[in-house]
């Protein structure tokens, strides 16, 4: 049973025995749900790193600018 593909043609596969809308919308929703919850955190991570890098660079630049003045 397990090794039998239930469909003989691609259009039959899409048709899902008359439940095309329901089956495909559920699997579509599921795919969007999973993709969104994996890629949104990854994108957010890039944003966080970018923002923090910017902060660090500027605070270091400010330190460098101040350091010689402090030595004098």
């Amino acid at each position, binding site marked *: *049973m*397990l*090794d*039998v*593909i*239930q*469909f003989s043609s691609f259009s039959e*596969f899409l048709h*899902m*025995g*008359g*439940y095309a809308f*329901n*089956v495909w*919308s*559920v*699997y579509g*929703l*599921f795919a969007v*749900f*999973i993709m969104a*919850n*994996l890629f949104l*955190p*990854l994108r*957010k*991570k890039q944003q*966080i*790193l970018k923002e*923090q*890098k910017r902060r*660090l660079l500027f605070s270091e630049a400010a330190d460098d600018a101040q350091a010689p003045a402090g030595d004098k």
Partner: protein
Amino acid sequence: MWLWFAKLGSPKWFYELSSKWLPWLVGAMAILLSVGVIWGLLFLPPDYQQGYSSRILIVHVAVAGTSLAFFPLMAVAGTITLVWRMKLADMVAKNAAPLGAWFSFITLATGSIWGSVSWGTWWEWTDSRLVSMLFQFFLLLGVISLRSALEDSDKAAKACALLSIVGCINVVIIKYSVEWWNTLHQPSSPVSLSPDSPNGPEFWIATGIMILAVYLFLAVSLILATRNEILVRERQAQWVQDLVRQE
């Protein structure tokens, strides 16, 4: 034991450990998900009553089963926050609430799409599982809005921890009382409204694989979100600054 516990509480330790584990978790999740989905869509024989619409159930049951884990998870994290004041537990709890709301929402959506075939209606109050899932969804929204309303993050952590513990007890009571309420309002028609009138062993094996895959997905997405939270909250720490420089 306690040393291990204290170590686990350190965000740095968690970040480094999760960096090692993530590829494995993602790999296992990807394999199980593809096996589940391909099997579900291509190989699963049609149910004699429901036809191919039973394929919806694989996804629905897996997501629904995983949604039930959120309140216990948040209650445990809340207890750790309140008793041991572990920051990491709150970072997990903070991200678990919106993720749990997503899971509950997808459960409701897939449930009602399945119901539109099986019951002929998109919403059915006599299905106690969907009704209690609806109230779980509302309770999670309550936790999220409490978190966003409290500005002080320490206070928000403790308040949400307490609300999660109260909510977890409440979800159980709601579940049983809705079931009870339901048995008394059952319509006279003898049609089975249970979403898992089973369809042979293949169906259950496929569902089992899917449940495992969705649990792994929960772990992966929660870990990803928690890692982001760590980067934000620990931004003053030297190791985070080093990490930022390397990027």
